């Protein structure tokens, strides 16, 4: 009988507890429609086509003269920057006394397949900057770009340096050949012409595939195991569901814009070589001569630091700062680290120059 293996009663207890949590989960989980991702009060001040310019209501009074416009990424929606009152990028900046605007790119439909970099840079972004300049009676604004939104913002800043007082690039997609992520590997081998010609816009399903190959076991299994283990923790569940809802809301990317992004950035790497054109104009990164603050995350598996950091060395600015944080792509903008370190450092840098 001594050879008989015994099962630790704690294992049975854990299995039973986990099963109970799975069964009871529907009681603790809100339906996606019940979760409101727009937490900080704002007004839609301008609408062009499907894009909206949001102006956030000040919280502690505006202390800095230069307004800040955020150009969010093309993947998913801007809500991640305002995902939860305790982890809101926007709210934190408002509390620091900045006037904050956000450009929501909206949800393109089949009709928008011909929208390209020119429309985004010289159209939507330029119109938003002009609106803000008019409203705040200033000649310059501060601009922040995140991820692919930073690619658009970088192109804008190079074309209209006179409009940008300070430029903040957060995990910008700049040097496609140096990008070591799975996304860049897929992009390098993609026939973007055929995709756009056949299906028009880049469909959300393709983005979901790209997400699913990023740490598939941690993100596809362990994340949900942890969720069920913590089903009693209201705060954890709320946060989890907000991020899940955000992850599931991926708009299509306009065909022509997607084609140019894949070919010019990942396949031919034109932006960093100062060979990329937007409309008829050449993007020369040396023309970016205002103060530049570049933020990268060491653990970024969507835009690797090697892809973002070249911006710091390519711009013509004398006043430039590069910050590297021990976190990931989303961790840099929506985590306790972003609240305690990333935002205070960015705020201090921006306050000095606003």
């Amino acid at each position, binding site marked *: 009988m001594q050879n008989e*293996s015994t099962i*630790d009663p*704690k*294992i049975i207890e*854990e299995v039973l507890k986990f099963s109970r949590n799975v069964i009871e989960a529907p009681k603790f989980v809100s339906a996606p429609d019940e979760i409101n991702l727009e937490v900080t009060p704002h007004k839609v001040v301008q609408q*062009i*086509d499907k894009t909206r310019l949001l102006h956030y209501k000040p919280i502690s009074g505006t202390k800095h003269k230069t307004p800040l416009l955020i150009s969010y990424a093309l993947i998913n929606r801007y809500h991640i920057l305002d995902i939860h009152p305790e982890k809101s990028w926007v709210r934190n900046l408002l509390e620091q006394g900045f006037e904050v605007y956000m450009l929501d790119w909206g949800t393109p439909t*089949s*009709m*928008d*397949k*011909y*929208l390209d970099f*020119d*429309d985004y840079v*010289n*159209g939507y972004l*330029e*119109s938003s900057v*002009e609106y803000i*300049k*008019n409203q705040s009676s200033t000649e310059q604004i501060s601009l922040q770009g995140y991820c692919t939104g930073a690619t658009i913002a970088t192109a804008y800043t190079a074309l209209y340096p006179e409009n940008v007082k300070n430029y903040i690039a957060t995990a910008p997609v700049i040097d496609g050949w140096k990008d*070591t*992520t*799975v996304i860049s*590997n*897929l992009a*390098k*081998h*993609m*026939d973007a012409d*055929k*995709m756009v*010609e*056949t*299906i028009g816009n880049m469909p959300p399903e393709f983005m979901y595939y790209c997400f699913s*190959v990023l*740490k*598939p*076991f*941690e993100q596809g*299994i*362990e994340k949900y195991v942890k969720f069920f283990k913590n089903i009693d923790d209201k705060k954890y569940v709320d946060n989890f569901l907000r991020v899940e809802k955000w992850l599931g809301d991926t708009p299509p990317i306009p065909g022509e814009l997607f084609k140019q992004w894949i070919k010019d950035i990942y396949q031919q790497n034109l932006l960093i070589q100062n060979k990329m054109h937007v409309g008829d104009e050449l993007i020369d990164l040396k023309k970016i001569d205002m103060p530049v603050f570049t933020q990268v995350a060491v653990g970024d598996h969507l835009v690797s630091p090697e892809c973002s950091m070249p911006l710091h060395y390519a711009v013509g600015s004398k006043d430039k700062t590069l910050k590297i944080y021990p976190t990931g792509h989303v961790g840099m903008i929506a985590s306790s680290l972003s609240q305690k370190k990333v935002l205070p450092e960015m705020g201090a840098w921006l306050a000095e120059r606003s």
Partner: protein
Amino acid sequence: MSSKPQALTSIGPMRAFAANSKKIAVELIEINENLLGFNQYITEYYKQLSETWGVAQKKVNQKAPKIPQDVEQIEATKRIWIDIFDNDFTELFDSKKFGENYGNLVSKELELTKHWNNITNVILQSVNLPSKEEVDEVYKEIHSLKKRVSKLELELKKEKRKNAK
């Protein structure tokens, strides 16, 4: 000549029906050819996944205890499993052989979609509806007009602002 039964398909509504049937038949033949290529790449895709799975599982077997005896050991085994599988699969997804095969797989899928679009176009035109290309032309024109209007509006706003100073 026109009284011959075989000439019936060259006149009137039957002519269009015959021409459309031929177009659809050609598309279906080409779909079959594409499917051969698609199957080749999808087989390679699953082969790469299953080989990586096999290698990763062997690594886990070498590192983890045979049968976990308590909760801590289960947790440790799970951690080893996740770390090894994530590393090995990320290495695969990062590799040139995966990128190339995946690119070819998507490309073949798009070719299949294109044939499907072509068949749909034949049907749309047979009921006097615009084809995908014709709708695209309209979209392109609308895009071009909107762009011109937006640029003019923006210029006007800038001019007004300049004059107001």
